[in-house]
């Protein structure tokens, strides 16, 4: 309880006090993708809108990307790793089956006193992790800072004979530091949901307890991401406007007061179509897919980092957050920004992506 006495921050108001992201330097362009999946460059651009993706170096696993993002977020928050009490990693591509990737990240960043765990809710993992961290902070007044990371190395789980998925997914990570914030800031009520009837619409079928890795699963390409693209589109078109309405009604934020809409990023074409159904102004949507593809659990926090880096978020601005992913899982909330800024915005500013597209 001493926190309420010594700081103006509310024990019930948890917000983002630091943000950072990381993508590995190596690129796979849409020209590379077109060649790899055996389609035209025009097909790749028209179907996905993804101009380039980042590919992890061979020695980099999901925890390495996550650790870079956490370091950037800690720097943004102005705190040291030794001040972290909780590390939650959301990922569908953990370093190993055992132990958790969060424990690897803990060791990499040197957050010795933190509790570390992974949460798995596919592309919604970051928001599910935010709910866990938010309530952990709310109910444990001796806990000060949590970091929630989304990180993926999809490049090791792609099957280039399956163009529907091989053209979409990229490698990258983004992290948010959560702390107590003034009463006028922070996350609104978080709505989450799941529908296990459609677990196989987007999945990696092999390598778990149902089908442990074997010569047969390798032969069957069961260790790659498989997706029913049509089912995914139907789901996104349905769930996206519902989640927007849900977040607005739960928080009481008016549509005209929403500064930016930050969503999971399936691909720019699908995202823009789904967003158009909400009736919100087009320029409020943050789109990162052109430059990084679909980063799975990393997409949503990466888009949030981009919004901050572009200077579109000032203290007090309302962000609408929408998550959806395999499982199926989904969720939404609002976030009143607390002023966190990216240390080095150069990788995020829009001119970076136009520079790439003009290389041809």
């Amino acid at each position, binding site marked *: 309880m001493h926190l309420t006495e010594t700081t103006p921050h509310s024990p019930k108001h948890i917000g983002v006090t630091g943000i950072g992201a990381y993508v590995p330097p190596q690129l796979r362009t849409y020209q590379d993708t077109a060649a790899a999946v055996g389609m035209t460059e025009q097909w790749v651009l028209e179907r996905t809108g993804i101009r380039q993706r980042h590919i992890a170096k061979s020695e980099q696993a*999901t925890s390495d990307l996550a650790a870079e993002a956490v370091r950037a977020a800690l720097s943004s928050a102005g705190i040291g790793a030794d001040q972290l009490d909780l590390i939650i990693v959301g990922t569908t591509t953990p370093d190993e089956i055992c132990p958790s990737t969060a424990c690897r990240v803990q060791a990499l960043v040197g957050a010795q006193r933190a509790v570390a*765990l992974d949460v798995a809710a596919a592309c919604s993992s970051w928001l599910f992790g935010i709910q866990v961290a938010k309530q*952990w902070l709310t109910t444990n007044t001796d806990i000060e800072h949590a970091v929630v990371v989304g990180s993926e190395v999809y490049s090791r789980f792609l099957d280039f004979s399956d163009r529907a998925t091989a053209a979409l997914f990229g490698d990258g990570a983004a992290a948010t530091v959560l702390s107590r914030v003034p009463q006028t800031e922070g996350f609104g009520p978080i709505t989450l949901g799941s529908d296990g009837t459609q677990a*196989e619409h987007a999945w*990696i079928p092999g390598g778990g307890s149902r089908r442990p890795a074997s010569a047969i699963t390798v032969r069957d390409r069961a260790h790659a991401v498989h997706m029913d693209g049509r089912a995914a589109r139907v789901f996104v078109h349905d769930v996206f406007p519902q989640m927007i309405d849900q977040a607005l009604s739960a928080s009481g934020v008016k549509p005209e007061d929403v500064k930016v809409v930050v969503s999971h990023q399936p691909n720019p074409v699908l995202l823009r179509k789904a967003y158009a159904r909400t009736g919100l102004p087009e320029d409020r949507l943050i789109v990162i897919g052109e430059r990084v593809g679909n980063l799975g659990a990393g997409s949503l926090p990466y888009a949030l980092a981009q919004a901050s880096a572009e200077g579109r978020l000032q203290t007090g601005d309302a962000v609408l957050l929408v998550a959806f992913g395999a499982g199926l899982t989904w969720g939404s909330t609002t976030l009143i920004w607390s002023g966190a800024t990216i240390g080095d915005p150069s990788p995020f500013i829009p001119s970076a992506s136009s520079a790439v597209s003009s290389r041809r």
Partner: protein
Amino acid sequence: MRGMALAAAICGVGACLPPNVVSNDDLVGELETSDAWIRTRTGIERRRRVQPGVSTGDLAVAAGRAALVSAGQSADFVLLATTTPDRPCPGTAPEVAHRLGLGDVPALDVSAVCSGFIYGLAIASSLVKAGVCARPLVIGAEVYSSIIDPLDRDTAVIFGDGAGAALLRGASSEEPGAIRAVDLGSDGSGSDLIAIAAGGSRLPARNGALSRDLLYFRMQGREVYRQAVQHMTASSQAVLERANWQPRLIGAFIGHQANQRILNAVGDRLGIKAECRFGNIAEVGNTAAASIPLAMADTLTRGVVRPGKRTLLTAFGGGLTWGSIALNWPDVLPLYMPPQAPPACQDTPGSLPGSESHGPAVQPWLLPTSITALNGTAHEAEHVPS
């Protein structure tokens, strides 16, 4: 927003053990070990193993349903702690929630290896106290037979398959089952002590031609033993201090069923009375994230702890992770179910959500005595329709 509860309390407990019992003698053939060696070094006499194709989700559905029937209530949030999810993506929990007939409640997997159930209980407790949900279902489920090297003597005899579950609800902190204090910890610098090198983004399984040492679960036994005793003891002391409870007044102590010698060492160091230490490692081995709820279900079945007694749970596992919970012993009737086969509707993606039957052919049953007395035989004979 729901009202804030003072505490979260366990109001239902369920368990699932595969019917197939594997004795020490069944395993010693190629391992250069013996029944006597395994018993004296680990305390394990037998364990359960699923048939190939039976997944963690199948066990989780059974334990989860048993917990819901035990509580006589439904759940509005599902946390599944496991090291062995059905597949890398998506999480196993949403499918489990659906098979339990829970509709579109939030469902996620939690990964903290053998400490996963304690982590899950701690998270569920904070969700209830914050008013985010009213009745979270926490499941620990594992099919370690899918990751264990049958030729590795150090691990092949230790691990078993199974699942346990607990339903929580808001309560006063004085009620039976109420969680009084929590202590969690992690140390990623020990990540390699308990690990599977391949199968993730570091070393994908698809690369093929990987050695047994990379493909299977490996444990540095001696160092794990030392760290387990140290962290379970320190974490237990921390949580008891937080609850303001004296170790000698603990009425029930259940540690992660990793190894009887570790449990003895922790109990001795804490000063817990011998007659207040409970577990079923002899019968089920180490079931990782399922270990604590399975031991709780076994102890509840035997009816040897009075509801409300001061209880200490402590776990340690890969990561490294550890955690302890101080709670009042719950006043619940634990139920058991056999593994649930996956629904046929999985093969018909066209079926509408909610159109398939959620009712299983088999209902949970109550065991008259400890599961230890049955050794996995004649379960059907004990079937009590509920």
